[in-house]
């Protein structure tokens, strides 16, 4: 499909990604080139191929065909751990947290793993330096008051923030957020996105986020990829994409009556 008009070397590039599950084609010739520090959103109806794209880029799924390049390095065959170590992190539609650990311990785990050395048997997880860093991260996401709580005691918004905060511990170069505001109360969506985008911008992280709320898409992304039936049907600035008749017909459902008939 199309690529960015910017001239910077791409942070993330995919070429001709194909992925099928039996007779269903979840990704068809997905080609994108995401420049450094860009903030792109991925929109589309359920089953359009957005999460399949995220899963392929982050190593959870391997494409049947095509190539994924991260800062020019081929990462197509890498698994989640290697992709994360390379500098691409993700959050999940359903936050993936360690349910038996507290909020603080979840961040301590993320920090211990983010350390270049493997987690040590003889280095305390809760040494004061690590706890201070964990608290800094919790404060950045304004969830420090929940530090002693377990996952079952947290609201959906706090879980989303913690999920993203943990991913940020590895100082990623590229972050993929899978529906960062899904399941979150309407009044919490913009405050959560403000916090997340501020944290990502502060570290110059290239960001792609899957989103169904077009107000959030318009407000936070500088480019939009619209997915339909495993293909990218539009790739442009938010206003252009959301004004595209095909997108209005197949994605947002906002097409005038004559266009949809």
């Amino acid at each position, binding site marked *: 499909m199309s690529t960015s008009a910017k001239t910077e070397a791409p942070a993330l590039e995919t070429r001709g990604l194909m992925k099928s599950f039996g007779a269903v084609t979840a990704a068809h010739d997905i080609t994108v080139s995401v420049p450094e520090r860009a903030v792109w959103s991925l929109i589309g109806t359920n089953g359009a191929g957005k999460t399949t794209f995220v899963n392929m880029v982050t190593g959870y799924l391997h494409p049947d065909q095509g190539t994924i390049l991260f800062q020019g390095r081929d990462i197509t065959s890498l698994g989640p*751990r290697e992709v994360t170590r390379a500098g691409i992190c993700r959050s999940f539609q359903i936050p993936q947290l360690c349910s038996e650990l*507290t909020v603080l311990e979840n961040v301590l785990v993320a920090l*211990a793993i*983010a350390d270049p050395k493997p*987690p*040590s048997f003889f280095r305390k997880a809760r040494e004061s330096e690590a*706890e201070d860093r964990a608290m800094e991260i919790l404060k950045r996401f304004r969830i420090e008051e929940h530090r002693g709580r377990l996952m079952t005691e947290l609201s959906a918004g706090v879980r989303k923030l913690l999920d993203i905060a943990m*991913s940020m511990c*590895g100082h990623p170069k590229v972050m993929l957020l899978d529906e960062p505001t899904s399941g979150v109360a309407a009044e919490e969506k913009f405050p959560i996105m403000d916090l997340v985008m501020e944290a990502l911008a502060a570290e110059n992280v290239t960001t792609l986020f899957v989103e169904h709320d077009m107000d959030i898409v318009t407000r936070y992304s500088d480019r939009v990829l619209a997915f339909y039936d495993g293909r990218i049907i539009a790739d442009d600035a938010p206003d252009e994409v959301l004004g595209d008749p095909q997108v209005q017909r197949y994605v947002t459902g906002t097409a005038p009556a004559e266009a949809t008939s």
Partner: protein
Amino acid sequence: MKALSDIRVASLLALALLVAGGFALPDWALFLMTIGLAKALVSLGIVVQMRAGLVSFGQGLFFCIGAYVAGLMANFAGLTDIFVLTGISVLACLAIGGIFGPLLANYRGIFFAMLSLSLSMILYGILSKMNSLGGTDGLNVAAPTFAGYAPEGRALSLSLYLYTSVIVVAIGAVLRTGFDSQHGLVSLAVRSNELRVEYLGASVRRTNAINYVISAMLGGIGGVITGLAIGHVDPEYAYWTTSGEFVFVAILAGYLSIPAVFVASIILELVRSFSNLYFPNTWQMVLGVFLLVIILTLPNGLGSLFHRRREGGS
């Protein structure tokens, strides 16, 4: 630093208590305590794996290897020094755990449990058929010496008990440090959410393999001490019912507290001894009822009585 000094103080207190108890206990109780503590080390190996969500039904493998290495070294090489025998057994278990650990670390749940069990049953089968090693009758093991000191009678029982006490306290302190370490916390994270751990950049397989090797070494130490205390080793050490007892103790204790494992193991030995005496045909039923009560009243095991979560975590 405070936590480290807490561990040191707790260790010294525990050691003082065990040593003082050793001089006060009658012979039968000294033997029971030695066996209870030694077998607790084997169960502690299961607890190490439980913290990452795995339960081994084949811990008898390393228990047996440890005991047989001690028996063979004593019988065929004339080595009776307990320090040397323990060292050789640990190395043997380290080597075998190092081979099987990375392989078994690919499996989860019942597959891991059954594969670990199958390894111990293979060893049981081999030992049962090897007449040169005593077949199903096993081997007698010479009394151990302690760096040249060769006690007899009660002095031997007491020496073995004191040696066991020192080992148990030292291992307890090291494991407490390990449980509170980065590796320990990552193990708990693996137990909760493997996908998250991989997406943070850590290897779940590596974590499980390390825990398996630690567990193997603990099994070996427990095997050496038990073999020397009883003075006899046989293939039953690797039999599935033996492994089942270790699992029983681990479930009884839970994965939260190390002292709970020792308490649970001693309770098992006490129940076994007294039930054998008074209910020779139904003592397993007594154990079963006891386990049911614990599971219903303390789902996280006896350890949840000793271990409370602090603010921000355990």
